[in-house]
């Protein structure tokens, strides 16, 4: 690996992943992620210019279904499983007046 994984970088990643982490978890993950990335150094070191990427093992392209109306899930049944619902919608905490 080109550079050592820092605790600050791991904290930034946790923010990107919307995951609260404790100081202990930060220490633990910094070491463990570095170990996995060290193992991945063999892949990082490969010269793969000219090799195409494989994102799907089989050549399926433009999979479409007939344009026919199908029944969807029952709204009340779906909303019954939500932590909070109101007036046929999911209810969430306030999203305005908040720092990003």
């Amino acid at each position: 690996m080109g550079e050592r994984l820092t605790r600050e970088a791991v904290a930034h990643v946790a923010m990107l992943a919307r995951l609260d982490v404790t100081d202990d978890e930060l220490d633990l993950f910094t070491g463990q992620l570095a170990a996995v990335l060290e193992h991945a150094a063999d892949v990082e070191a490969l010269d793969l210019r000219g090799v195409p990427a494989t994102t799907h093992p089989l050549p399926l392209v433009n999979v479409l279904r007939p344009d026919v109306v199908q029944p969807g899930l029952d709204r009340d049944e779906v909303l019954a499983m939500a932590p909070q619902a109101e007036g046929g919608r999911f209810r969430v905490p306030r999203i305005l007046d908040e720092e990003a």
Partner: protein
Amino acid sequence: MSAAASGARTASEVAAAVATGQVSAAAVLEEHLARIDATEAEIHAFNHVMVDEARATAQAVDEAVASGSDPGRLAGVTVALKDNMCTRGTPTTCSSRILVGWRPPYDATVVTRLAAAGAVVIGKTNLDEFAMGSSTENSAFGPSRNPHDPSKVPGGSSGGSAAAVAAGYAAVALGSDTGGSIRQPAALCGVVGVKPTYGGVSRYGLIAFASSLDQIGPFALTVEDAALILEVIGGHDPADSTSIDQPAPDLRGGLGRGVDGVRVGLVRELMGPGIAPDVAQRVTEAAEALEKEGARIEEVSLPSFTYGLSAYYLIAPAECSSNMARYDGVRYGLRAEAPGITEMYKATRAEGFGPEVKRRIMLGTYALSAGYYDAYYGKALKVRTLILSDFERAYADVDVLMSPTSPTVAFDLGAKTADPMTMYLNDVCTIPSNLAGHPAISVPFGGGEGGLPVGVQLLGPALSEPLLFQVAAAVERAATAVFEGRPL
């Protein structure tokens, strides 16, 4: 004392006996429930046993038989489902705190197909949280144990399904295999486990971990039973856009064909360092047994396999981090209370996910983040191409490949939990098939250290299931011939 069942009826036998009225589906179910009562407290294969629902289903099957209507190809066959497959109105947790209390509003396609065939779903089995692990120790509800020796893990992530079949709690089970999560626990628990070709079985209603690798497949006591289940659950499903547009192939027709003239390649990279000698020995014996039946055995090298593990542990976490983004406390599952929405997301995910899921979300987010995408995720996708090319070269010379399924027999609980990398190394033999989208089967072949089961893995190109099952049946017959009358 071993909780492993012996002398249990196979699914094929049950289906035939129930359909002809020789035995009732209700009686079959009660036998399984009695075994669950006897040893489940120790084994912990299930998150949820569906006693009432199963009794109602069995009764409906018996009524169909009594009225003379077709009860289906799996009449009265008990099936355990890994708890990451959606069952309408019945808890589906992925062994995660974040989904506790959630009841899906729909059935997975495999569940619908099993029900239509007269199968009796008996419960939802334990797994490593969201299928991330190789021992079932990452479950939020505690580990499952190996029926052959409860001090050992059953493997994972579908450890509960493997244990349920090995202990006789269900005739067959379904699991999901992203990097070996069906085959490795099958090997460790001494049962048959199949990862079909990617797209061979619908993933609709399978809760996603790594979408380009995940595949549903069966656990069974015999190769024939695994083939029967795959014939029922396989085939095109318009609800899954990655589903192959073909009907499920006939797999049982060729089981008796033998291996005369079949070319079998032993994978050099999976027979040397890192593979326990007791396991390698059994695989060699299995190859010799096939040779006696007329197969041609040769050693084959697939050098890119060396990079498989690294590529997998970049691709799977990357796709995991994307798939896990949906657990945000808004539409289902747990919500931690917080004043603003971002705080709510972060607190909910911190409270709901266990350490391994968090670790993979972090690793995947990093591998996908600006500045690192090309170096890690981008390169890992290219390694997938190298592995596919190696397979293509190998299959120019041989029909199927053979290797161990797991580098070792079942290990002690707690032996590998301290260091994630040690646990990840369990998947070295199984990962290449997932990266290539190819099918593979693990078949029990005798015992290794401590008398614990050893699994032999057979690998084939995309859509080669009929041949793979044919060879697997020959390995199974050889195992019976070689080990009959002897304990594992």
